[in-house]
């Protein structure tokens, strides 16, 4: 092939490659909407999420708190949160350190398990470490299923990481700074063995400047054959080998016993499960909701549910919000909620509920429409690709004094392609 044609091809490929960098958006968040719609809708219902403050300096504290309810209709084809779970944080690496975390007041340094349909309140305390702008999420990792990500907000950290401070004290009174702890010991240990290893190799090449080693030995062995090749090993080599063998074992034993003497109190790595009792749900027994039909339009941006709601409170209620997959569809006639940043998934006028009054003590059939571009941009329409066409979410109702009631709703859902 003509060299000029090859050069043209290379130039064209280079232009195409470079243009992908120029034209593509910077990936700032974590690809939350890449998860299956069913996973996001029917696993954890996160609500009342707060992350504050949003702008901090290195060493400042950031608090994340809120509530979650594992769905009572957890997908059968996914490992349940009733197995093993862990409260975690979604950030790009240790830009923050976690100084504390609790669920219902129980410290969450261990793994745990949660019950379906129950209410939990969590809080996590972070300390800012690395300057930058981060999309911070609470998340719960479920063994066998993966991370279930909660709502997120952008947090900006200013300052210099060199100013970061973090220490804690062991039971023996030693103050540990994890930023630098153990480095000197590790380097020293490696240096000792590296020198010994290099000396061992250097021994075999000790006369290499005068007498090359590799090729002459190779040719000699070719001549002698494997049966007689051991003639190349001299008595000196045997003595050095045996001495090295003993020296290594002596060094290892010495290192071990000296360490035992200097650090007598050690314990094995700790692991285990800790139990978390669920909270009392203040809404238990106050609402009954039966989903009758649910439909979502694939080409469109809407989802509607017909349900029978029984109001067992003593005040009339109205539907104010439907929350699913961390997307909040708000009924602007009942409450006002605005997005707090560019990635806050709030459809401020995304919920439409005709005849939106459920009198006290009565049962009413209501159809609710969740209509917003978020339905599509957050890829909730990809529910059609799930093996179980079933939706889930949290419904929030309010009385005329603003008191809130909430209950999970879920049910079979049919797509409409028109």
């Amino acid at each position, binding site marked *: 092939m003509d060299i000029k044609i090859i050069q043209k091809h290379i130039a064209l490929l280079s232009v195409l490659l470079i243009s992908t960098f120029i034209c593509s958006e910077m990936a700032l968040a974590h690809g939350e909407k890449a998860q299956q719609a069913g996973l996001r809708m029917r696993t954890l219902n996160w609500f009342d999420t707060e992350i504050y403050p949003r702008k901090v300096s290195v060493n400042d504290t950031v608090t994340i708190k809120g509530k979650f309810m594992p769905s009572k209709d957890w997908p059968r084809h996914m490992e349940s949160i009733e197995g093993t*779970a862990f409260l975690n944080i979604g950030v790009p690496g240790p830009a923050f350190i976690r100084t504390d975390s609790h669920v219902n007041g129980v410290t969450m340094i261990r793994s745990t398990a949660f019950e379906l349909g129950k209410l939990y309140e969590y809080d996590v305390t972070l300390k800012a470490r690395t300057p930058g702008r981060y999309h911070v999420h609470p998340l719960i990792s479920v063994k066998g299923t993966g991370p279930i990500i909660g709502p997120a907000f952008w947090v900006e950290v200013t300052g210099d990481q060199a100013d970061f401070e973090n220490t804690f004290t062991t039971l023996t009174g030693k103050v540990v700074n994890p930023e630098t702890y153990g480095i000197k010991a590790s380097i020293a240990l490696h240096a000792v063995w590296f020198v010994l290893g290099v000396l061992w190799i250097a021994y075999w090449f000790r006369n290499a400047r005068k*007498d090359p*080693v590799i090729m002459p030995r190779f040719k000699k062995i070719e001549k002698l054959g494997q049966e007689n090749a051991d003639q190349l090993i001299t008595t000196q080599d045997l003595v050095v080998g045996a001495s090295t063998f003993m020296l290594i074992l002596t060094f290892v034993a010495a290192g071990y016993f000296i360490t035992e003497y200097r650090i007598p109190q050690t314990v094995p790595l700790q692991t285990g499960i800790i139990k978390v009792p669920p909270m009392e749900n203040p809404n238990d027994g106050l609402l009954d909701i039966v989903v009758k039909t649910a439909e979502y339009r694939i080409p469109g941006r809407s989802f509607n549910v017909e349900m029978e709601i029984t109001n067992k409170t003593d005040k009339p209620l109205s539907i104010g919000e439907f929350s699913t997959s961390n997307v909040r569809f708000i009924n602007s006639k009942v409450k006002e909620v605005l997005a707090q940043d560019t990635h806050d998934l709030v459809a401020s006028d995304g919920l439409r509920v005709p005849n939106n009054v459920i009198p006290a003590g009565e049962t009413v059939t209501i159809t609710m429409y969740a209509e917003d571009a978020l339905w599509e941009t957050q890829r909730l329409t990809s529910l059609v690709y799930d093996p179980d066409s079933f939706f889930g979410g949290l419904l929030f109702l309010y009385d005329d004094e603003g008191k809130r009631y909430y209950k999970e709703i879920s049910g079979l859902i049919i797509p409409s392609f028109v």
Partner: protein
Amino acid sequence: MATSADDPVLTPPRSTTSDDRPVRSAVSSREEQLEAYRNIDMVSVPVIVLLFGGITVFLSAVTVGDWDYWMDWRDRRWWPLVIPAVYIIFPAVVGTFTWKKLRLPIGGTATMISFVIGAWLSRYFNFHQFAGFPMGFVSPSTFIALGMILDATLVVSRSYFFTGLVGAFIFGFIPYAVNWPVFALWHEPVSYHDTMVTVADLTGYQYIRTAIPEYVRIIEESTLRTFGEAVTPLTAVFAGFVCILNYYVWVAVGSYLSESHWMKKVI
């Protein structure tokens, strides 16, 4: 061994093509040949170190990587078993080649040095500089002693069988003891909200790893529970036996690979 001055193998070879036309050798004098051999010496060991550094780091990453990446994964049951069982592969293969072809017991040491260099580079640039984890928490363990034990046993015994029985057993037996001067620092106890944890556990908890929830750590899980607190020696003995078997398998592989006939034609 004879010196270069009187070694007949150093005579520059005369070779012919298949149709008996004489071919001129690349070297035309003893001095030139010695110079070529010195260059081979100078290049070979660094090449082995660089080449196998990358390969062994990759092997580690796709097999037992996590166990040695983080201090809070280096437990008493899994780390002492899986690490030597995998890391004995290249010392066995390369060691067989260097012994068989050169009678040089340097394969184990060279591959372990190369792995440790590669591991340090990876931890420093990837885990510390790029990802931001404290260097002490992700610093690699040392395995050079293990490679040296294999090599020393091989030169003393001049036998793969005995090297497997003794050298490979010690290779599997000692990793935890070799690294205990560092591990002990991370196993000091801490009270965190009335929960006893180690320094390693707490550091792992504090320095957030979104993709590594606590339960993912494969540590301390096993059925060998009848020896009380003597977990580590028991695991070390078991690891020793596993390494004996693994050593023989990979010596066989190394032996087979060393028999490539094309090597003779090149050299």
